[in-house]
């Protein structure tokens, strides 16, 4: 073996140069979860439930919009107008209503 050939071998060993006949290959893809976890955005983990809930929210039957001005006033006592029997209910009547709700 020539001196040059010995030096070449030594250099390849020291610097771990890839051989022409045996080129260094990339490490195989393992599809392991651990190497990938560092690329996950932590917020996507903590917010996962919220995200899921927002995406899964069904479409409302009626959507939000600005109220028509004076709607509260217009509907004040509206059932008492339709049903005279419900006019001028007392505090005690209202408490009775509250108790009825508890029965539900």
């Amino acid at each position, binding site marked *: 073996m020539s001196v040059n050939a010995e030096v070449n071998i030594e250099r390849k060993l020291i610097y771990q140069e890839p051989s022409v006949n045996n080129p260094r290959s990339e490490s195989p893809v393992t599809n392991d979860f651990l190497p990938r976890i560092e690329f996950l955005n932590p917020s996507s983990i903590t917010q996962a439930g919220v995200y899921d809930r927002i995406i899964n929210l069904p479409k409302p039957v009626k959507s939000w919009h600005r109220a028509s001005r004076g709607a*509260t006033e217009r509907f*004040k006592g509206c059932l008492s107008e*339709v049903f005279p029997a419900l006019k001028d209910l007392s505090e005690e009547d209202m408490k009775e209503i*509250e108790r009825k709700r*508890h029965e539900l």
Partner: protein
Amino acid sequence: MIFVYHFLYSPTVFLSRKSALFLKDVEKGKYIGIVTTFTIAEYLAVTRGVLCKKKNTQVTSSEISAIKAKLEQFITQMGIVLYDSDSLATKHAVFADCESMIERDVPSLGRHDGKWHYLKGADALHLAFANSVNAEAIATFDDDFRGVRGAVRPLIIPEVYRN
């Protein structure tokens, strides 16, 4: 119940006055109102019961339709969001949520009536629906909601509108 008190408004009744103040704030946009079809069912049941008692006769189907129509018109004019309870129940574990709400609830002794207040089945269902639509609070007069622990907090109307 807020709808019932408002629709049966009487200026001398405390519950009616406070309901009107809260609804005025919803109208102004201070709160975004959300109701479900379960809220409508409860409103119908209570109002029908009151009418039945006051008239001392059966309530007809046309009267029930009139009661229902008033709430639907009000919801529309107030810009209140309406969700279908059935749709919510298919997308979320509403009934399991009910159970955990009742488990987490802390019963409390009423300051004024000296009675124990705790979350009932229908209350828990309202809360579970509120939770499923990410509502921040549940507006109520009911002391039974006082011990609620979870994402949806109770907004006790007489405490918010003291004057």
